[in-house]
């Protein structure tokens, strides 16, 4: 019998959501599953009905849920429909009836921070780097998940180069790339040479600003090297695609996923930092080596990263 999967979120349009949709579509193509995507919109009032409408049918083997604002509705509906299996992506809740796919974005961001700090530390000798010794961060809204990215980024930067300065700003919205670009411009104008964006479409403006200002940017969630070739240092990939794909794969292969936590971190490849080739080619060799070293230490648990909550 065909596996029937639904996914519900308000963020399919944004970076991490895009990677999840990618994974779902790949699973659909590879395994011939039935797939239903439900966009929640942004009104909290709607969520619960949308969940019940899905759960009530009893048709879906798995329902993927992404977005912290949905947590309340998820918990209620999961209690009301105990036989319905939900997969909550990107976090762990109290309920033990739910499958959790937890991402260690702070780990990936830690590496991104370390990379940015190391490159910044090269100083004016390196292309596009000034002597400000400051790196930047543009967040979407100032919400806990984004704060977790920022926390990891800062820790990584300080770990690699203790005296590097991290300038962080928030756009207050995920939908305003113009504002993202303007924020990045402001940062670049203040001696910041590398800006990490965790801001969905707003962040796309950051990438474009890095091209306009001829500075560096760091992508997030998906590979963004193509957004501003030559100006994107790396992307911190949060592999939602891998997560959903692997979960569906288990389901299809007759190993029904059970409630519990699945962690996607540096170790499992759930998060990773991917250097952009064009820039990587110009980097002094010791930097990739140093990054790999830090990565190992994180994987081995030698470096403790605090999660922001």
């Amino acid at each position, binding site marked *: 019998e065909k596996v029937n999967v639904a996914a519900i979120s308000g963020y399919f349009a944004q970076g991490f959501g895009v990677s999840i949709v990618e994974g779902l579509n790949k699973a659909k193509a590879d395994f011939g599953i039935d797939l*239903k995507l*439900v*966009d929640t*919109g*942004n*009104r*909290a*009032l*709607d969520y*619960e*009905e*949308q969940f019940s*409408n*899905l759960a009530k*049918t009893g048709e879906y083997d798995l329902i993927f849920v992404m977005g*912290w*604002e949905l*947590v*309340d509705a998820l918990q209620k509906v999961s209690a009301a429909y105990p036989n319905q299996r939900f997969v909550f992506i990107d*976090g762990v*809740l109290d309920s033990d009836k739910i499958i959790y796919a937890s991402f260690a974005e702070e780990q990936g961001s830690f590496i991104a921070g370390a990379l940015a700090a190391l490159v910044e530390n090269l100083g004016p000798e390196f292309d596009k780097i000034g002597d400000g010794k400051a790196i930047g961060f543009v967040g979407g*809204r*100032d*919400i*806990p998940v984004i704060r977790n990215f920022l926390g990891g980024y800062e820790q990584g930067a300080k770990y690699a180069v203790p005296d590097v300065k991290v300038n962080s700003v928030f756009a*207050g919205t995920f939908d305003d790339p113009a504002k993202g670009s303007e924020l990045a411009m402001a940062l670049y104008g203040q001696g910041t040479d590398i800006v990490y964006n965790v801001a969905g479409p707003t962040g796309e403006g950051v990438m474009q600003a890095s091209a306009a200002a001829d500075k560096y940017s760091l992508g997030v969630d998906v590979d963004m090297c193509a957004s501003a070739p030559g100006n994107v240092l790396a992307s911190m990939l949060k592999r939602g695609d891998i997560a959903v794909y692997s979960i569906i794969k288990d389901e299809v292969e007759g190993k029904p996923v059970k409630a519990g936590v699945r962690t996607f971190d540096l170790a499992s490849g759930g998060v990773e930092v991917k250097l952009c080739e064009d820039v990587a080619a110009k980097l002094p060799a010791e930097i990739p080596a140093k990054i790999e070293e830090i990565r190992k230490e994180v994987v081995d648990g030698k470096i403790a990263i605090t999660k922001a*909550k």
Partner: protein
Amino acid sequence: MKTALLPDGLTRTLAGQVLAFAVALSLGAVIILLIDENPVTVFMTLMRGAFGDAEKIAGTLLQTTPILICGIAACIGLRGGMFNVGIEGQLFLGGFAAAWVGFAFALPPVLHVVVAIACAILAGAAWVAIPAFFRVRYGTNEVVSTILANYIAILLTSYFTIFLFKRPGGWSETPPILATAYLPELFSFSRLNVGLLIGLFLAIATAVFFRWASTGYGVTMVGSAPKFAEYGGINVRKVGFGVLLASGAVGGLAGGVETLGVHHRFMEGFAPGFGFDGLIAALLANGSPIGTIFTALFFGALRAGSLLLEVDTTASREIITVIQALIILAVSADLMMRRRGDRTGERRWKF
């Protein structure tokens, strides 16, 4: 504002609205066809999603509640000649205030709700007080000041939520309110709560107030003929201030009802657009509170129906947004009442 409709005027209006509906729906059908869906299926699903069973009807009413209360807030303003575009902001502040009372204080059951609602009302009124003051004292256009105040209100509640009162862990929301502050639910199977009754009561009370109360008469006169009202001994400034304050208070109430009745906490950006939906509902009903019940119900049904639509068909909710907009446009044109190029009646440059 239209005065009491004559019977034949009423039929003509109704015929016009039906025609407008038909036009909008056929346009909508064309669009649905364009995205490879069956319009009949879509409309049937919409109906099922809005009125399919008791639960669905309750869902529709649940969606109707905030639109209705915001609509009443708009009606009050419109009747008094004030264009309160800031209902959205008042809703957010009211919602936050109610949540704050709900989680920060322990009070006995009924009292807790009353205090929380009172604070929501107060917050809404307080938020509009400064624009209202400048409006009546210095003539500052209230449309501009309330639009701007919306942005500030939303950012302010986000700040409160995330920086001052965030629930430890996960999402940007306040701690849950205590159960003593919950608005009682009406049915076991739905989150529909007494907020709906509050809204209906408010609509009827407002209608009665404007129809029969001496004060309501004064407000209506200030709205429709301010110089006449002033001449007749009505304190136009005081009434104008009061009207904006009342409108803001009801806007705050809408937020309070949402947090106490449905969400039981305040979340950042929890109810975007209700203020504007309410405003449109009120404008379509021509400022009549009773009419707003129906326009709000209509919007609520569309929203509720669209939730099922997304699950049961491949059409997305945005299609409903599009159809909703088409219907509003068609209905606003009032096809039968004012025919093109008809020069009688109101002069044509008066919009």
